[in-house]
């Protein structure tokens, strides 16, 4: 691999800044819960179904507890205490608490609205087995997934970046057909793009869906449908095909759990993306991302972070350092949630204006820098989008250079560029042609990176040095300001958000003394 000069002490300082930034936020996270966190825990404990209006049971119950101002003790407490008092299983307790007389909720909190020490002990005891079952389900799905993967070829072109393509028909059954076709054509990873409206829904839709704008709803059933299609493709092609979706938005934690039990291999999951790009409240996002990552850590799922998006709104030359700074921050948050480096698919992108002279060299420098700074991480490399205009022929060339950087610098996960970017969601043949062209570049330039050495003071090396120095300065600044204030000032992606602004703020609850969450506790104990 061509090396760029990297000052390891500077990298260490970046990590130290990021650790301080994340630790500051972690204090807040550990003192709060959210409606999303409580819902995922209920799902993990086995609460299923919807009410007669189609509202998921977990929403009905959490909203009721939130309305009664008792969510601060944890939905788990209510379930456990209700089982201890009335018997039955988790689902029966959930239905009782969601739909029964409100007295059945209030009785769990005594005269003063606070559970007694005895009630807490009883509730914990009632949840012991359901908690073990919850973990067993996650572990079972993980083991099944890893076994299937181990039994087949891992990728179409070993030694080159994994090829990642998207399908986005809006209809899950069409998605399944296209996913299989993509796997056959050489894709290693298939993502089903999510309907654009979903990130701001504070519930996860139920069932298989056939209508969606800009993509297909992420639902547990939909995950299962695509998984079955890709299992078939895996067996047929003799090569494992990975599935990914979006653990992001207001339901990022619930979707992480669904991904875990439906055997997804990767999820898009970022500590700050929702704040910056979907205007989700930052307090909410920080708590939700942590809990989502606890499930992901247990499942050995690889996350893909979203820094690449910064360069779609901010300038890719001026703001390249914000990407690497954010990668350090995502890494620090990830570690605090139990993720190991091998699960951290940090994102970056080939988005420099192609009209700029030597932009290819700058891209090479930046890509190589990320590779060296995060050597064990499955780096996710994203294609040009911003400067694609609809000229499909030019775009195909643009993607070829992107692919050349990807294979030369040894990126781990490469989302393939589509020449029809900026026109429509990829057609069947668009994906085929993109895979074909990528295979060509990866084959012809397979060992290019091993052959070349970079001039230590050349354009590529200097670019890398500059970007890392700027990233360090930014991290030092964010550390002093705290990330709350830095985001408010637009430090990332040129987007400004306030601490109490954005969507989902009302869904945050300060944990009360005695807050109970045995599933989360078990996840925290395991990594």
């Amino acid at each position, binding site marked *: 691999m061509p090396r760029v000069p990297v000052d390891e002490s500077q990298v260490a300082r970046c990590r130290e800044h990021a650790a301080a930034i994340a630790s500051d936020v972690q204090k807040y996270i550990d003192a709060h819960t959210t409606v999303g966190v409580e819902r995922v825990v209920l799902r993990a404990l086995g609460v299923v179904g919807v009410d007669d209006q189609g509202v998921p049971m977990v929403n009905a119950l959490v909203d009721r507890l939130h309305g009664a101002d008792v969510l601060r003790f944890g939905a788990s407490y209510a379930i456990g205490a209700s089982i201890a008092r009335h018997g039955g299983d988790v689902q029966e307790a959930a239905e009782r608490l969601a739909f029964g007389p409100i007295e059945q909720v209030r009785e769990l909190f005594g005269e003063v609205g606070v559970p007694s020490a005895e009630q807490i002990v009883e509730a914990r005891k009632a949840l012991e087995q359901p908690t073990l079952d919850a973990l067993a389900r996650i572990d079972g799905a993980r083991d099944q997934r890893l076994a299937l993967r181990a039994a087949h070829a891992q990728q179409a072109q070993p030694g080159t970046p994994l090829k990642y393509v998207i399908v986005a028909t*809006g209809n899950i059954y069409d998605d399944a057909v296209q996913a*299989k*076709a*993509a796997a*056959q*054509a050489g894709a290693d990873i298939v993502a089903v793009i999510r*309907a*654009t*409206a979903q*990130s*701001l829904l504070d519930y996860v839709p139920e069932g298989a869906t056939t209508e969606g*704008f*800009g993509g297909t709803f992420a639902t547990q059933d939909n995950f299962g449908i695509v998984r079955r299609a890709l299992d078939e493709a895996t067996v047929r092609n003799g090569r494992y095909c990975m599935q990914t979706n979006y653990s992001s938005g207001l339901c990022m934690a619930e979707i992480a759990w669904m991904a875990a039990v439906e055997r997804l291999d990767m999820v898009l999951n970022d500590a700050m993306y929702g704040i910056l*790009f*979907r*205007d989700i409240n930052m307090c909410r996002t920080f708590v939700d991302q942590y809990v989502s990552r606890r499930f992901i850590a247990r499942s050995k799922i690889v996350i893909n972070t979203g820094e690449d998006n910064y360069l*779609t*709104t*901010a*300038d890719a030359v001026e703001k390249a350092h914000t990407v690497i700074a954010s990668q350090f921050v995502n890494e620090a948050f990830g570690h605090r949630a139990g993720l190991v480096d091998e699960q951290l698919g940090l994102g970056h992108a080939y988005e420099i204006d192609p009209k700029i002279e030597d932009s290819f060299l700058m891209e090479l420098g930046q890509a190589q820098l990320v590779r060296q700074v995060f050597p064990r991480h499955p780096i996710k490399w994203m294609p040009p989008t911003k400067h694609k*205009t*609809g000229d499909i022929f030019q775009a195909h060339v643009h993607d070829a250079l992107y692919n050349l950087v990807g294979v030369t610098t040894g990126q781990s996960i490469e989302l393939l560029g589509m020449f029809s970017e*900026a026109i429509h*969601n990829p*057609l*069947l*043949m668009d994906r*085929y*042609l993109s895979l074909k062209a990528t295979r060509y570049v990866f084959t012809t330039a397979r060992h290019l990176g091993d052959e070349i050495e970079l001039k230590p003071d050349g354009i590529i090396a200097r670019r890398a040095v500059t970007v890392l120095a700027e990233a360090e300065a930014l991290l030092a600044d964010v550390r002093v300001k705290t990330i709350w204030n830095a985001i408010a000032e637009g430090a990332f992606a*040129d987007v400004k958000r306030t601490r109490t602004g954005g969507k989902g703020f009302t869904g945050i609850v300060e944990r009360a003394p005695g807050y109970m969450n045995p599933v989360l506790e078990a996840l925290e104990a395991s990594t």
Partner: protein
Amino acid sequence: MHPTEAKLLRAYGDREGDGMVQMSFTLQMPVGARGREAAKRFAEAHGLKEPIISTMEECAEGFTYFVAYGHSQHTVDVTNLEVPEVEVPRLEMKEIDHRVKTRLARKIVVVGACTGSDAHTVGIDAILNMKGYAGEKGLEAYKSFEAYNLGAQVENDQLIERANAVGADAILVSQVITQRNCHKDNARALVDLLERRGERGKFILLLGGPRIDHKLGLELGFDAGFGPGTRPGDVASFLVHKLCGEEPLPSESIRAVAKAS
């Protein structure tokens, strides 16, 4: 009115009138002689004479990808095209600020959003945010503009409420997602809602997005439509001309590109 002589054009490949075009498409059938013949017939059905199937490859199980070349028999009469375009001279930022200051003596207030389910703020951000687009600053950067970017997935009633609350002169709507024409439905719904509230005409309505053009904007009841490549200065210039007088109203500034050569 003098009837103009039709000017019929064919696609220009290598020489005038050869009509040469390329097509690529997928048919749900296997590779083979039958597939090639099917592709040829398909190309002919599109008016391509003597089509050549230059590529035939399996792109998925049971699907074949083709590239075809052929001489298109179709012509287009370019003498009677009606293409409304936003036609106001582009002004520099300085000139815009000067005109607004001297003629309006207050800031132009604009409220913008991606409406409906659309979560893609790239367009509205490019026009409104300080950063702007393609090296040109957005409306926030103008001294003469007060810009409110409400972001994504804003409901039409919220948008109107906000426009009223800040006393907006103009409402900017961005629509990026176009699946099943939802961009048209979303845009039309805003106009309908304003109509029902009796507030049609209260605001200048601008529509933007990659699949928007001025004609579509007008059809949907907006004062203008802005397509890909629109810069903040284009939008600012339009609003200055509209609000600072001495320039024709947009409805009058529409030209029909129909000049016979």
